[in-house]
C-alpha cells in the first residue's frame, strides 16, 4: 500500500512540526519597571525554574549606579546607597540592614542576576519609596508612578480616553476591535471591563495586563480609528471615514493612517501591523505622488543616544510629524510608517513603502555628530541598462537610483537656501536598497553643534520645510522616472 510506505516520513515530519510549534510560539518573558525617572522593560531569565533579572540593568536607569565586582562580593551603589551581594547566597545587605531573597544571587560572567520576586523589596529599600508589584503581569510601579484614565463615550460618535499623563501606546486594529498596547506607560485601572450596552458604536473596553505590558481593547460595532489629542493626554476612538473603507484614493483627510488630527499633536495613531499596511496599499494604488515618511527606529530600538535624555527615535518621530505637516501644506499626500513608539523591522518598512506604491520614500534619522543635514542615497553598483525581469531584494533600489539622486540634490538645494550645512553621499543604510521608489535617508545634526538644538521646534520646522520643498520641486523628474 502506497500510504504505508510514506507514513514514517509523514509521522516524523508531524513530530518535528509539533516539536517546533511551542518553540515558535514562546514569547520572550519581560518585566516592566515604571519610575518617575525612567520606565523600561527587561527580559526575565529562567534559572532552574526561578525567574531572575539582571541587577545592573535594573539599577542603571534609576539613578547614579555603579557596580564593583570583587572575588567574594558584588557591590552595587545606587544614588549613594550601597548594596552588597554574595554569589550563591540569599542574603543581601543594604546599608546597615539586609534581608533574605527567595533565591540566591547568581553571577554569570560580568553580569549578576537577582530573583525577580526580590526586586520590589530590593527597590523599595534602595530607593526608600513604596513599590507596587503586579505579580501576574510582571509590572513594577516605583513611588508615585502610575497613569490613570477615564472613558467618555459620545453616543454613537466615538469614545474619548483621557489619561492623567501623556501616553504613547502602539495601536493596532482588526475588524471590530482596536487595541492600544502600553509598554512604557504605567497605565493602571481599578476595573477590568467597561460595558457600553446603549452605545451603537462602542460595545466595551477591556483593560488587560500581561508580560510587562498593559492594553486597552476597544470592541466596536464598526471599523474605528484612533487619534491622539491634547499632546498625548487623550486618544479619540472614532469611526473610520466611509471613503477610506471603500478603497478610494486616500486624501490627507480621509486615510485613517495619515489623517492629521486638528488638535495640538498633528497626526493620528496608526497600526504598525501588516494589516494596516495592506489596508493602506489598497487605497493608495492610484496615488500619483505619494510620499512615505519613515521615522527611523522606534519601540525597543532607540537608535543613537543623542544625549542622556534624548533618543534618536524620538527626534526622528518629531521631525517626521513636522515633515508630514509641511508636505500636506504643499498639497502632497504623505503617509507616516510609524506615528507612535512602535517597533518596525527594516523589512516591514520597505514592504509597506513598496506596497503603498510610493513615489518617494524618506527615512529620517538624527545624529549628534557634525551639524546640518546629510542626505544619503543607496550605495549600490550602477544598474544595467536593461532591467532584469526579477530584481533581487537587496538591489531593488538600483533602477530608481537616478531618481533618488535627483531628489537628494533638490532637497540639498533647499537646505542650502536656508544656509544650513548639507551634503549628499551614498550610504549603506537599510532599507534604502529594498525600496522601489525614489528613496533617501536624511540624517539631521544639530544646527550649531549643540545637541539640544535638535529638539528646537524652529529648527525642526526649518529642516522639514526644506525637505518638503525639495520633494515638491523634484516632483516632475521623479514622476518621469517612475
Amino acid at each position, binding site marked *: 500500500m502506497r500510504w504505508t510506505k510514506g507514513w514514517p516520513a509523514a509521522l516524523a515530519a508531524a513530530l518535528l512540526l509539533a516539536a517546533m510549534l511551542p518553540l515558535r510560539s514562546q514569547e520572550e518573558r519581560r518585566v516592566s519597571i515604571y519610575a518617575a525617572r525612567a520606565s523600561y522593560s527587561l527580559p526575565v531569565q529562567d534559572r532552574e525554574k526561578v525567574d531572575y533579572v539582571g541587577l545592573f540593568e535594573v539599577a542603571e536607569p534609576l539613578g547614579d549606579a555603579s557596580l*564593583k565586582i570583587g572575588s567574594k562580593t558584588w557591590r552595587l551603589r545606587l544614588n549613594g546607597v550601597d548594596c552588597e551581594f554574595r554569589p550563591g547566597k540569599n542574603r543581601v545587605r543594604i546599608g546597615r540592614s539586609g534581608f533574605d531573597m527567595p533565591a540566591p544571587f547568581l553571577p554569570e560572567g*560580568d553580569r549578576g542576576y537577582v530573583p525577580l520576586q526580590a526586586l520590589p523589596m530590593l527597590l523599595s529599600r534602595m530607593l526608600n519609596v513604596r513599590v507596587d508589584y503586579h505579580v501576574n503581569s510582571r509590572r513594577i510601579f516605583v513611588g508615585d508612578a502610575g497613569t490613570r484614565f477615564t472613558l467618555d463615550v459620545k453616543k454613537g460618535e466615538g469614545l474619548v480616553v483621557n489619561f492623567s499623563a501623556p501616553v504613547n501606546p502602539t495601536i493596532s486594529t482588526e475588524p471590530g476591535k482596536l487595541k492600544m498596547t502600553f509598554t512604557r506607560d504605567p497605565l493602571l485601572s481599578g476595573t477590568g471591563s467597561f460595558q457600553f450596552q446603549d452605545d451603537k458604536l462602542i460595545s466595551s473596553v477591556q483593560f488587560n495586563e500581561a508580560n510587562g505590558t498593559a492594553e486597552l481593547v476597544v470592541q466596536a460595532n464598526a471599523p474605528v480609528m484612533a487619534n491622539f489629542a491634547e499632546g498625548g493626554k487623550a486618544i479619540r476612538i472614532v469611526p473610520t471615514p466611509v471613503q477610506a473603507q471603500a478603497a478610494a484614493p486616500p486624501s490627507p483627510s480621509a486615510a485613517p493612517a495619515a489623517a492629521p488630527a486638528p488638535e495640538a499633536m498633528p497626526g493620528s495613531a496608526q497600526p504598525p501591523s501588516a494589516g494596516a499596511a495592506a489596508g493602506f496599499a489598497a487605497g493608495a494604488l492610484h496615488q500619483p505622488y505619494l510620499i512615505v515618511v519613515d521615522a527611523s527606529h522606534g519601540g525597543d530600538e532607540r537608535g*543613537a543616544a543623542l544625549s542622556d535624555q534624548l533618543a534618536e527615535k524620538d527626534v526622528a518621530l518629531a521631525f517626521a510629524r513636522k515633515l508630514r505637516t509641511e508636505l500636506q501644506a504643499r498639497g502632497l499626500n504623505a503617509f507616516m510608517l510609524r506615528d507612535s513608539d512602535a517597533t518596525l523591522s527594516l523589512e516591514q518598512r520597505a514592504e509597506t513603502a513598496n506596497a503603498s506604491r510610493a513615489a518617494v520614500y524618506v527615512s529620517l534619522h538624527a545624529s549628534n*555628530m557634525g551639524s546640518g543635514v546629510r542626505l544619503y542615497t543607496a550605495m549600490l*553598483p550602477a544598474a544595467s541598462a536593461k532591467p532584469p525581469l526579477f530584481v533581487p531584494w537587496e538591489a531593488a533600489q538600483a533602477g530608481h537610483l537616478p531618481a533618488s539622486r535627483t531628489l537628494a540634490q533638490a532637497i540639498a538645494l533647499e537646505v542650502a537656501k536656508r544656509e544650513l550645512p548639507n551634503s549628499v*553621499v551614498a*550610504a549603506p543604510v*537599510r532599507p534604502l536598497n529594498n525600496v522601489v521608489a525614489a528613496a533617501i535617508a536624511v540624517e539631521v545634526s544639530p544646527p550649531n553643534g549643540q545637541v539640544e538644538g535638535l529638539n528646537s521646534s524652529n529648527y525642526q520646522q526649518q529642516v522639514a520645510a526644506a525637505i518638503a520643498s525639495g520633494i515638491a520641486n523634484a516632483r516632475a523628474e521623479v514622476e518621469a522616472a517612475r
Partner: protein
Amino acid sequence: MIPRHVQIAVTVLLLAMFGAGFFILRLKERAEAERTVSDSRPLAPPVAGPAARVSLYIAFDDDGVIRPRTTSVALPQEPSLRAREILRALMTAYLARPSPHPLAPGADVKDVYLLSGGTAVVDMTAAFADGHRSGIFVEELTVASLVQTLAANVPEVQRVKILVDGKERETLAGHADLMSFYDVSAVNDLVKAMQ
C-alpha cells in the same frame, strides 16, 4: 615599666601596619573595579614577518573625511593573515588616544577569509559592533574605511562581507547594513567623495 620611647615606637609601628593594610585593601578594590567588561586580550599571537608598506584609509570624525596614510607593518606570508594584520593596523590607529575615529575597547579583527571570485569575509569581534557609536555617518566611516583599506592592499578583493563574532548581523549599530556584500567599486567612489 615600659620606657616611653618604646611605647612611641610600638604605637608608630602599629599605625604604620594598619595604614599599609588599609592602603593594600584600597589598591585591591581599585584593581577589581577597573576590571573591564569587554575582553581586550589579543586574539592571536603577534605575527612575524618582514615589514611592508601598507595604505590605511583613516576616517577623521571632525572633518568627516577618509584620508589615506602609509605605514609600515610586519606582515606574514599567508594572504589571509596579511589581510588581517593590515586591518589590525587600522584598528590600532582607531584605538589609539587621541583617536581620529574612536572605536570601543576590544574592537579587533578576528579573521579575514579570502575566497575565490574576489570575495573577502572579515570577521570582527563582538566588542567592535556592540560598543560602536550609532549613526549613519559614523558607521559609514567605519565600514568604508575597513573595506577601502582591505581593497587597497589586496587588489583581488572585489566585494567584502562583514561578520561580527562569526555571525551575520543586520546592522553595525543600527544603521550601516551588514547583511549585504560591499561592492569595492561603490565604496571606492564613496571614499573618493569623502576625501
